[in-house]
């Protein structure tokens, strides 16, 4: 610790830079210019030398470069050679914050502390110069990029700025280079909570330029077309005293405490106390009420260091990399040049699922989509559904009238499969979940489609290979398993059957990409990935309830994971009947591990839609369900329940990896995050199971090597 508190900023950064030799280094160019009527001005441009596809970040050497630039302008300001200092970015990008790759490499608490302190030490110099400083948010600004501007005296923002956020809490950090302490003192605690907590925990929601101005973060807003010119002329006007910047007084009374409480409620509703970052950020925001920035910055340094050395952040970065990088390059997908073009899609069935698929295909692929069913009424209903949904998109302004006309014109229905699918390149079935029915449908379709057409099935639990087995060309069958709601959940499990060929699989991945889905390649095995893990997970909960643990205890036992909803609420969402059906399927496949709960059977038989009633506004066990339950007399504690459930999940994942259901544990996590909404701070689930020692206990080894979603050894 003493080394970090006594070392100079330059030493700190040099030390950190040695740990991170692969940093993409941002330069801080200093250029002088004449501000009309306001003298010589120094403008610092942050630029990593790449175009906008590689945004500017701050690693240790980048911070050292900014530090050196500030050395120069500090002296010029002290010597009276310049009247002000500005800070802006390369085209389209201001700066997007700390380089996460560098954070992943940190192994020791003092190094983590040095990163926080290093950033602070450099950024805060911008508020201590002998002249005013100005940040010009010209383009994307995130995290440390936002924070460096907060240390300046004034800020302007471009109307065309597409993304502005403090995403730290989303990843498992706090805005620790001044964000937590400065932002509430600039715009008030309530607005700061919205930016730091609420936006972060809502899938990392981004602000646009106008909102940045409306929130009071920026003092002036200018069009993108001549943003820098107008910002500089405004600067001249401020420096000449012609423009006075007035900011509303920040309410340091009760409103501040209420804002922090609101933040806690948001955090509770999103992570249920299971991830520390939001709460650490709120502590600093609460303390910032005093206006003591030094204390706030110290608290940020400590929080950053603690979180960097904690598992949640590592899991968060891991999860971020999964959805940002791995999702774009699906493991095991064949060469994409093998993919065949898809210029017409057929959907067998016109029920709700089929209609949802038709809507998705027509919106994303913009090719003709034909629905078929057994009678005209069903077909009309299916097409009608798609048309209504397109009208809703039109009302919301998501498509314009021309686009709506185009999309509606592309969706048709037919009773004649031969006419409908005769020139289709891709036909997906969404008929009743029964092998014989699906085999019959595929046989009918194969008789009429062109030779190259892909036959896809949206089955959630049946064998794709078996479904293909009676066809003359089984190599063109793929599993294409969506998750409900189809429009919202990104995951698409692409199942390779025993005889599926590379070209068909490549086409399936190409279609998935056009559909903007996260495709994961899955082996043909019962219930694939997400449903198998969820069913094992729910089955174990159901088991302990059946054995005698009260429903409330079983449910509470899972809360520390911070899942989006409790197991029984999830069951209600899925539908108890479907849950039962999947558990029966898996029970047939793996009778030693998957049980069929008699209580669940009873609930389904009674026609109940769930375990709870919501009369009081909160979920309470439905008395009718309570009356149905037949429980044993083994009562477990919450800890015991949690251990049993996690052990079961770890065992199942271990077996799935052994069987090669997916390429790697990362794919399991990617599936759980994008298909079940499991949280970033768990990294899906395997980082958590490794961290808690569950995987070691159950399978004898970790799922992920040390350092991948954890502090490196």
């Amino acid at each position, binding site marked *: 610790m003493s080394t970090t508190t006594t070392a100079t900023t330059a030493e700190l950064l040099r030390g950190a830079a040695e740990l991170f030799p692969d940093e993409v280094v941002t330069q801080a160019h200093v250029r002088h210019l004449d501000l009309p009527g306001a003298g010589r001005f120094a403008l610092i441009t942050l630029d990593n030398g790449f175009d906008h596809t590689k945004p500017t970040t701050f690693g240790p050497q980048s911070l050292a470069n900014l530090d050196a630039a500030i050395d120069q302008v500090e002296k010029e300001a002290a010597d009276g050679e310049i009247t002000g200092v500005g800070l802006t970015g390369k085209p389209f990008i201001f700066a997007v914050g700390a380089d996460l790759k560098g954070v992943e490499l940190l192994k020791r608490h003092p190094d983590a502390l040095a990163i926080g302190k290093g950033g602070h030490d450099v950024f805060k110099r911008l508020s201590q110069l002998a002249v005013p400083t100005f940040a010009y948010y010209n383009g994307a600004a995130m995290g440390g990029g936002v924070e460096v501007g907060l240390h300046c005296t004034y800020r302007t923002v471009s109307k065309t700025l597409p993304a502005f956020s403090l995403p730290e809490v989303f990843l498992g950090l706090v805005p620790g280079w001044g964000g937590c302490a400065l932002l509430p003192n600039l715009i008030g605690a309530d607005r700061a909570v919205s930016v730091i907590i609420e936006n972060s925990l809502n899938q990392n929601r981004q602000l646009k330029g106008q909102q940045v101005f409306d929130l009071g973060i920026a003092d002036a807003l200018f069009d993108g*077309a001549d943003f820098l010119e107008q910002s500089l002329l405004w600067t001249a006007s401020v420096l000449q005293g012609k423009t006075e910047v007035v900011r509303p007084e920040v309410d340091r009374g009760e409103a501040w405490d209420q804002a922090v409480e609101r933040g806690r409620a948001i955090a509770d509703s999103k992570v249920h106390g299971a991830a520390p970052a939001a709460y650490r950020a709120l502590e600093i925001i609460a303390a910032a009420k005093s206006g003591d920035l030094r204390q706030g910055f110290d608290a940020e340094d400590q929080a950053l260091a603690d979180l960097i050395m904690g598992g949640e952040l590592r899991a968060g970065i891991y999860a971020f990399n999964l959805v940002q990088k791995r999702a774009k390059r699906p493991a095991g997908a064949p060469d994409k040049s093998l993919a065949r073009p898809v210029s017409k899609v057929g959907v067998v069935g016109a029920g709700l699922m089929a209609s949802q698929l038709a809507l998705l295909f027509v919106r994303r692929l913009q090719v003709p989509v034909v629905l078929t069913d057994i009678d005209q009424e069903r077909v009309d209903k299916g097409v009608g559904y798609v048309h209504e949904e397109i009208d809703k998109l039109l009302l919301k302004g998501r498509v314009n009238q021309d686009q709506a006309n185009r999309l509606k014109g592309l969706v048709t229905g037919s009773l004649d499969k031969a006419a409908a699918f005769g020139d289709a390149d891709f036909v997906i079935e969404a008929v009743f979940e029964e092998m014989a029915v699906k085999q019959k449908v595929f046989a009918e379709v194969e008789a009429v489609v062109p030779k190259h057409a892909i036959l896809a099935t949206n089955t959630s639990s049946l064998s794709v290979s078996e479904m293909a087995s009676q066809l003359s060309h089984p190599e063109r069958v793929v599993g294409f398993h969506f998750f409900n709601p189809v429009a919202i959940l990104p995951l698409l499990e692409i199942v390779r059957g025993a005889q599926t060929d590379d070209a068909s699989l490549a086409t399936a991945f190409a279609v998935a990409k056009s559909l903007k889905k996260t495709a994961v390649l899955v082996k043909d095995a019962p219930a694939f990935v997400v449903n198998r893990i969820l069913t094992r997970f729910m089955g174990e909960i159901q088991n302990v309830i059946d054995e005698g643990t009260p429903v409330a205890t079983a449910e509470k036992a899972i809360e520390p994971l911070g899942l989006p909803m409790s197991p029984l609420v999830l069951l209600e969402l899925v539908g108890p009947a479907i849950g039962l059906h999947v558990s029966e399927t898996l029970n047939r496949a793996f009778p030693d591990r998957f049980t069929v709960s008699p209580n669940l059977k009873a609930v389904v038989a009674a026609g109940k839609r769930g375990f709870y009633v919501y009369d009081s506004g909160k979920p309470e066990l439905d008395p009718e369900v309570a009356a149905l339950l037949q429980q044993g007399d083994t009562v477990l504690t919450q800890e015991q329940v949690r251990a049993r459930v996690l052990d079961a999940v770890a065992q199942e994942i271990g077996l799935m990896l052994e069987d090669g259901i997916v390429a790697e544990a990362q794919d399991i996590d990617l599936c759980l995050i994008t298909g079940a909404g499991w949280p970033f701070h768990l990294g899906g689930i395997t980082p958590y199971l490794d961290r808690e020692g569950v995987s070691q206990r159950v399978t004898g080894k970790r799922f992920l090597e040390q350092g991948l979603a954890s502090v490196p050894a």
Partner: protein
Amino acid sequence: MPRTARDVVFVDGVRTPFGKAGPKGIYHETRADDLVIKCIRELLRRNPGLPPERIDEVALAATTQIGDQGLTLGRTAGILAGLPQSVPGFSIDRMCAGAMTAVTTTAGSISFGAYDVVVAGGVEHMGRHPMGEGVDPNPRFVSEKLVDESAMFMGMTAENLHDRLPHITKQRADEYAVRSQEKAAKAYANGQIQQDLVPISIRRTSPEAGETGWGLATADEPMRPGTTLANLAGLKTPFRPHGRVTAGNAAGLNDGATASLIAAEDVAHELGLPVKMRLVSYAFVGVEPEVMGIGPVPATHKALAKAGLSIDDIGLFEVNEAFAVQVLSFLDHYGIADDDPRVNQYGGAIAYGHPLASSGVRLMTQLARQFEEQPQVRYGITTMCVGFGMGGTVIWENPHWEGK
């Protein structure tokens, strides 16, 4: 239907600072279209009384209409400048007189009643688009001796003009150039130029040309205040051994853009827009391409004749200084002294630079300022020579004129 010609006025004009073409120039990393877009936006900011949807046309000139000067610049720049979609636009080319032609041709349409208000201007980024880029002259020009080969090279045509008018010596040309630099420096010191400049953000990523990062262009880069005859005497004559035309007594190769608002006078009054000049007449004339610099002489005759004026009625002259010899040939023809105070009071293109198709509006903007300062003057002209043997002249009346 009965038709009444309407009076046409120059409402306002602005320009970017002009830069030197080439890798070290201030605009080396700036797009040409961005230069003119920023001029259009400045015109709208300076004239808040003009609802943008009242603009009926955007006419923009560029000599080399490819790349960032192509794609029907008048239309695309309008969209990029944030004008309403309903505002149309087109591109126009008369080489050096491009912006001048943008003004005159839209003025004709205003007078006819087709437009009320237009944006007219031009741009030339000679760094990105060197003169002659992509041209493919018809071989008949040479085989049939339609023009001399030197006609393609403006510097050679200036040497040819020296040949034709041997009394215009290199010494006179250099003296004229020194005065142009002096007058421009004085105009800058008096703040007569800066008020119509649009500052432009400029990026530099190559350290050879100076500090890197974003900067701001607020002044003309080509200017060489303090230039002396001795400085000029030693310069090379690149177009001919022992010739007379040098980089010192000619305009350079430059980057820059201009834009103006032209309106029917009644509409300007309706919208409360300023009236800086009133159009009297204009004319374009063709001459031998080998001596294109003589173009302003017949063009001015023609414009004066149409206006029923004589050269003595003209109180202020803005003559584009492509070459000193070309200005001197004009002055000699009309019996005006080399240092006549009515001519190019703020200096000219030899000092500021000449980004081909943009220059016409620079002349107008400067004449408008001089009209404002000198209400005793009633008429002024803007005139320029044009490649391939042409001249263009526009005669303007001073709305501030006090006499009668």
